[in-house]
């Protein structure tokens, strides 16, 4: 059972793909409250990759390290920090804990290279991220909304999407 830790991964990536790994800045998550206990901030331990080189890093994971199994692509909207974070989670088929690659994108026109041509399993993950967060995956063969209908406007999982009301229902209803 392979047992790579996140630090090892960062080290290896830094060695083999120079320039791809970025230094993570601490995430504030929520604005500091005016009173009451201060929420903390946190620094991720996972490898933070330059968004443009995510495909390269993923292929490195697969071909060099043997982490062939792409389990999950999760997106988080850090509104206070003004960025979207995409988490790619890889597993080794022989078992062991996961390794994650993270990429941070600006909230305006976020774009990433698509993994779907190499991992068909990324298809729905990326469509979901496109649907709910508006991240464009360049090179995806069928990048369409997956849950919401095609005419839907806005990205419902973003933190600034209005949580109340329904623009499709008028005032009188």
């Amino acid at each position, binding site marked *: 059972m392979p047992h790579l830790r996140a630090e090892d991964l960062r080290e290896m990536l830094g060695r083999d793909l120079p320039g791809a790994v970025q230094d993570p800045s601490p995430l504030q998550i929520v604005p500091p409250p005016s009173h009451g206990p201060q929420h903390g901030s946190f620094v991720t331990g996972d490898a933070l990759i330059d968004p443009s080189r995510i495909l390269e890093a993923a292929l490195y994971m697969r071909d060099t390290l043997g982490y062939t199994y*792409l389990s999950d692509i999760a997106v988080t909207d850090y509104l206070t920090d003004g960025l979207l974070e995409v988490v790619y989670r890889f597993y080794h088929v022989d078992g062991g804990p996961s390794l994650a690659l993270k990429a941070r994108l600006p909230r305006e026109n976020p774009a990433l290279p698509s993994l779907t041509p190499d991992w068909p399993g990324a298809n729905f993950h990326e469509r979901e991220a496109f649907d709910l967060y508006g991240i464009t995956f360049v090179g995806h063969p069928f990048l369409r909304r997956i849950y919401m209908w095609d005419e839907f406007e806005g990205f419902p999982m973003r933190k600034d999407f209005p949580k109340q009301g329904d623009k499709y229902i008028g005032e009188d209803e």
Partner: protein
Amino acid sequence: MIKTEELQINIGPQHPSTHGVFRMLVTVDGETITDLKPVFGYLHRNHEQIAEVNTYLQNMPYTDRLDYFNSMANNHAYAIAVEKLAGIEVPERAEYIRVLMVELTRVLNHAGALGFLINDMGAWQTQLAFGMREREKILDLFESASGARLMCNYFRFGGVVRDLPDDFMPRLKDLLVAMPAFIDELERLLRENEILLQRSEGIGILPRDLAIAYSVTGPVLRASGVAYDVRKAEPYSVYDRFDFDVPVGSVGDVYDRILVRIEEMRQSKRIIEQIIEQLPDAQGGHINPKARQNVRPPVGDVYARVESPKGELGFYLVSDGSTKPYRYKVRAPSFINLTPLGDMCRGYKVADVVVILGSIDIVMGEVDR
């Protein structure tokens, strides 16, 4: 050669065998599928955003509704994720009870899934009725422990909501007498039936490498020959204390998926027997008395996963230090297992589509979230 025209058919969203509101846009040439596009989202309720406005505990009953067949497994994955995030200890006894419930869920799910699969092949409910009968017995047990049959809401952070009732163990032992008989009978019905063989052998083949590339999980992955089981690959809870085997298929077709599911029921039964042996010696109560249910985990993110009967069920949580999760993402096995559906169906007949779909075993509550 005769020139034929292609025809587009919508199977679903209201169709008897799409397992919910699910649509398949099928292009057929005669009866042969040339293209299939799954279309879903009819049941989408933005589960993940609902979770962001609820507290951690309030999300527990919502996880029941993800895969409503296996609410216990969903609860387990979520409880593990939050416990990992907040650093909550779980007593040994509670762990055993949890594993017991989840393994019962696995039997229940596979019994139902096989029944539905055979139903999709056109049987008139008999296999399903047998499966449902066993499922009812297990649901009776769930009801006596948790108070509900389907939406169990049984797990809490640090344990389970209440200890097993007194009559639970005798009934469970009775059930374990019936279970092998049921599994054998199901196997007699399914394993050598020529019609079923014709319908399932060589249908919907997913080769080993592609199965990994498509990120499928659970019995579908194992039927393709990959012995990947989260319970073995990254043991959680107390799974490292049990002896059980991992069944894998050799071809990766529908028939292998049937066989793997049957064998998994047997293995679950093995685990349950070991739990019955070990449970009386387990330390602690049914819940960690120090665990606060209104958790306020430290800032950070966590990913935890379990082997749900349908595959790898994972929860990715980000905490901002408040009582509500900042981000709550479900890695739903049914959803990801649907990815290869379109490609798997290509080249087969219309009648095979529903069989392949049935062999993936999806639940729309989890797919659409």
